[in-house]
């Protein structure tokens, strides 16, 4: 690296005259990128493109993949399970993004702006930590506890019986009509702490005088929520909705632990559908096609999100 020291004062904006020294300088930095680049290519780059190739073949995982053109995609679009699984993805977005964000916003505002002032930071901290608790464990552990809670001989039916409503008891996860709402409830429970914690942290940087001024002007709690809280924490809302939407489209572990996509595919989601096709049905080409479509949807959704955010920021600057 002796050459590196020679060119030390260079800056990225050096004009063309000193191009040689700039090249040398870059070369020495590139060496730091080699391990990462090699690993990245081997673990993400090649598998990613190989998966796309596999989606154009018929293959059971042994022997050689046979090229099949767009056969798997044609199959996919004619497959009811595929459409069901993506419809269920929308339900996942409702359960992991829409409901937690709305409830999280209200909870954070109530805890911060309403209860915090009267009961102090201690009470608020304890409540916040409680809401966050489901976020710290492996989601599959949560899934297994809930799987038992919702079993025919589990706690929900036990509770219904205890209050004399035993006739309302159900096999919550075994009935196609109830399985999806039950799974959605579990996911709301898992997710709720994340927006609460992020939004409360965001509220910490809002100027308290805004609230005081609003209050002196006679604004009620609801007015303050609408006029101050929501606009002030928009950047955090954006991050929360983007990360949670991507997580919702990819959700796997809770479905695996709760229902394995059943009953009758009523809770099947693309990731579980792909897993099942790869490893249980050994229909690798088809599984690869599902995974490729899922990837495409995620990239498009993320792209739309980022474009909207960029536009909103430009509007603010004006």
């Amino acid at each position: 690296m002796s050459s590196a020291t020679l060119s030390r004062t260079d800056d990225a904006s050096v004009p063309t005259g000193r191009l040689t020294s700039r090249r040398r300088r870059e070369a020495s930095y590139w060496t730091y990128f080699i391990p990462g680049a090699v690993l990245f290519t081997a673990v993400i780059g090649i598998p990613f493109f190989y998966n796309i190739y596999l989606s154009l073949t018929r293959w059971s995982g042994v022997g050689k993949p046979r090229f099949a053109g767009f056969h798997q995609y044609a199959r996919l679009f004619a497959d009811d399970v595929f459409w069901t699984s993506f419809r269920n993805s929308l339900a996942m977005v409702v359960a992991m993004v829409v409901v937690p964000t709305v409830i999280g916003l209200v909870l954070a505002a109530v805890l911060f702006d309403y209860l915090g002032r009267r009961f102090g930071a201690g009470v608020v901290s304890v409540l916040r930590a409680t809401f966050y608790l489901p976020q710290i464990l492996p989601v599959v552990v949560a899934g297994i506890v809930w799987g038992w809670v919702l079993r025919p001989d589990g706690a929900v039916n036990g509770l219904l019986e205890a209050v004399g409503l035993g006739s309302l008891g159900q096999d919550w996860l075994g009935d196609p009509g109830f399985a999806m709402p039950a799974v959605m409830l579990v996911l709301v429970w898992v997710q709720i702490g994340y927006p609460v914690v992020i939004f409360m942290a965001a509220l910490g940087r809002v100027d308290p005088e805004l609230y005081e001024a609003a209050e002196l002007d006679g604004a009620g709690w609801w007015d303050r929520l609408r006029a101050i809280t929501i606009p002030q924490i928009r950047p955090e809302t954006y991050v929360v909705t983007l990360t949670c939407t991507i997580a919702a489209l990819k959700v796997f572990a809770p479905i695996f632990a709760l229902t394995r996509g059943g009953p009758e595919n009523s809770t099947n989601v693309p990731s579980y559908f792909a897993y099942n096709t790869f490893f249980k049905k050994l229909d690798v080409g088809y599984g690869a096609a599902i995974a490729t479509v899922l990837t495409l949807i995620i990239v498009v959704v993320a792209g739309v999100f980022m474009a909207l955010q960029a536009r909103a920021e430009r509007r603010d600057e004006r």
Partner: protein
Amino acid sequence: MSAIITTSTTQAPGTQAPGTDGPASPAPRFTSRLHRGPGRWVVLVLITLCALAVIAPFLLMLLNAFKSPSDYSSNGPLSLPTEIYTKGLTTYWEQVNYPQKLLNSIIISSAVAVAATVVSLLNAFALGIGRVRGRLWIVGLFLLANMLPQEALVYPLYFFAKQVGLYNTQLSVIIIFTVIQSAFGTYLLASVLGTFPRSVLEAAALDGASRWQTLWRVVFPITRPTLTVLVIFFFIWTWNEFFIPLVMLISNKTQTVPVALATLQGDRIMDAPTTNAGALISLIPCVIFFLIFQRTLTRGVMAGAEK
């Protein structure tokens, strides 16, 4: 960004530390009439009830982890145990060889946490401080990689691992998650190092420090708070990972704590007390990490913000 960040991606929904007093409530220096009255108590009770509903599954789990199967079938899930029954715990402990699973999880998560942080730092050094050409594209690529569903990589990874003899080894999972986590770490650190004070780097160069020395003697110590947070995030995210370990690790010797619980439950051989006991001992490590890490996390995050 879960896997990515969260999210798993699940990723970003990671590990903000709530227990600590982050946003202190604003000083109640004015007390208008709106602040008095019973209304607040009503709201407090309502919110507390919501919080109780959130922890109810944990309480139920605790209650039933120590109940015998016959007690469970005769008295149901809501009663207090007639006696403290620990056979559920010991059954699960022995059946899955829990200490082995714990060790596996610790090995995999620690190796990934350290390796992924080192890789992130090296990448970010080239991108953020070296400002190599095309760095915006590279960072964009890492961001994109963060969003990829693991389903789009899993079959080729499974197939290649079988070819090279890494299938069902912890090394395979360690390598895969080192890359996946460092995709996020690179993205984050590259922007942190992009704002690294140039004057410090120039001073180091004037003192005759090589790039390697600059990295380890200057950049590393200054960014250590951020790196600590990354190590903790990567550890916890990897600990909680499920999909790829489920596919890659199929034997008792290699599986992690969450995978062991899920596969045993999948066999439907567990009665309610064993299920609850298994869940209970599977989540204890996470609670411990949480208690240990939350102070470091808050400190680290704040140190990062003060810059």
